[in-house]
């Protein structure tokens, strides 16, 4: 049991969609990730890289709310932690659209929540954003 817990805690984990930017710091304290902050015109991008090589970019509005996340790497990030309270909505939508086609992108387009997963074995890419919390000048193409 102790070993199992240790394994879970060493997995890459990141801050949470829809929460305050301070959660980025909280997560960084216990995961093995490096972070850099890239200020953009209307938002701040926090970039984290896990030991397993997964890069997560978190987009924070001027008010400090994370309105989008993007990821890229050899495996998927911990989507449960990354999407926070939106994970169950994403998961149930993903299960509902199960269809044959093992490597098709997985696209969830709900009012307010968009999640897009693409890529292939050894190289995954994706983004999630809260469409009604995006700063008006920001295009969804910038989330990557």
């Amino acid at each position, binding site marked *: 049991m102790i*070993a*199992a817990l240790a*394994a*879970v805690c*060493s*997995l*890459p984990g990141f801050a949470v969609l829809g929460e305050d930017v301070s959660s980025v710091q909280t997560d960084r304290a216990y995961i*093995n990730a490096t972070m850099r902050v890239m200020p953009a015109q209307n938002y701040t991008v926090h970039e984290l890289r*896990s*030991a*397993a*090589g*997964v890069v997560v970019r978190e987009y924070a509005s001027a008010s400090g709310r994370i309105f989008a996340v993007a990821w890229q790497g*050899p*495996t*998927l990030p*911990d*989507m*449960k*932690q990354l*999407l926070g309270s939106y*994970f169950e909505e*994403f*998961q149930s939508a*993903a*299960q509902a*659209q*199960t*269809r*044959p*086609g*093992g*490597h*098709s*992108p*997985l*696209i*969830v*387009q709900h009012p307010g929540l968009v999640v*897009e*997963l*693409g*890529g*292939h*074995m*050894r*190289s*995954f*890419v*994706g*983004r999630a954003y809260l469409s009604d919390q995006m700063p008006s000048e920001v*295009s*969804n*193409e910038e989330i*990557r």
Partner: protein
Amino acid sequence: MKFWAIMALCLTAVSLACGGGGSHKSSMLPIAASSSNVQPIVVNSGPAGNYANGLFTSVTLCVPATSNCQTIDGILVDTGSFGLRILSSAGGGALNLSLPQQKASNGNVGECALFVSGYTWGSVNTADVMIAGEEASNVPVQVIDPTFATVPSACKSAGVPENDSLQALGANGILGIGPFAADCGGACAQTGSSNPGMYYGCAGSACQIAAVPVPQQVQNPVALFPSDNNGVIIQLPALTASAAILNGSMIFGIGTQSNNSLGQAKVFPVNSSGEFTTTFKGQTYPAFVDSGSNALFFLNTNTTGMSTCSNSSGFYCPSSTQNLSAVTSSGSPSQTINFSIANAETLFSNRGDFVFENLGGPNPGTFDWGLPFFFGRSVFTAIEARSTPAGTGPFWAY
């Protein structure tokens, strides 16, 4: 799944979808004659009867060094993954052999293999694998089995569906013949937080992440053939609009025999992520060639101007067929690819058709040249570190 089942009779859609499509492709390629390195492949509805643009073949597995063998058809041919995965009878598949279990220091080896739209969970076992006249011995394969141990929480927290049943997978297995020899590589052989957590050691039903040496990871069987082991060619004839079925050939080896030379094919080296690039409307994106993707998946509505379908956000539904063009490249070699995207709902209304030339859908910031790209081409996939007459893999050529 229901989405696939809805295919109302609408023959007029064939001519609609045809407008502008197909003209860029030459007539049928000569299909390679039967030989010890040639395996028949087919695009059809697959073993679940509802797969659109699924490319299938059969594979023979044997308990190693015995004549206890089983031939299983309905195996998805996939240049976008690496390694052979077979659906167990517990998952509704055909496999009834008892294959030796791979062991790690902390128990039986299990694997959570992530695909974009789902994961496969099960044990890692060894088998002799025969395809056409080729045979690879003691190949680590994944036996997809939802009843093997308990699916680890880290596997479930990816949020993507579990593809451990015939209905979810739409196939009796996946033959991953992409440009790498193992499904994970060096990262999964490491201990600690740099291990991406694909392999597990399972004692009873409890599994913990395990470091598994590369040769014991699930292997691309082509890389383990005694000869013709540097890559594979997928050869499918051209198609106009749609069809019920399309037959082709999978040829093993590149430049190793008289039937698998590169000829005039252009070579596109692949990076360490298994990708090259594609330029569309002046912007360059990461790209890959994937026979296991059932459409051309690229970018989004903002960039392409095509809306997604009202009953499936996974496909494009333009009001009229769009004739498009993009440039695939890998450094200096480049090639323009013309393609067309039709309304997916109109295509699926052709009851009885399961092969679609002009099927497309969105993909975040990426170009996935899925199965329609293979129609009318010979597509070569060279395996990493293997030499060919056109240099060392990994590369694609076409």
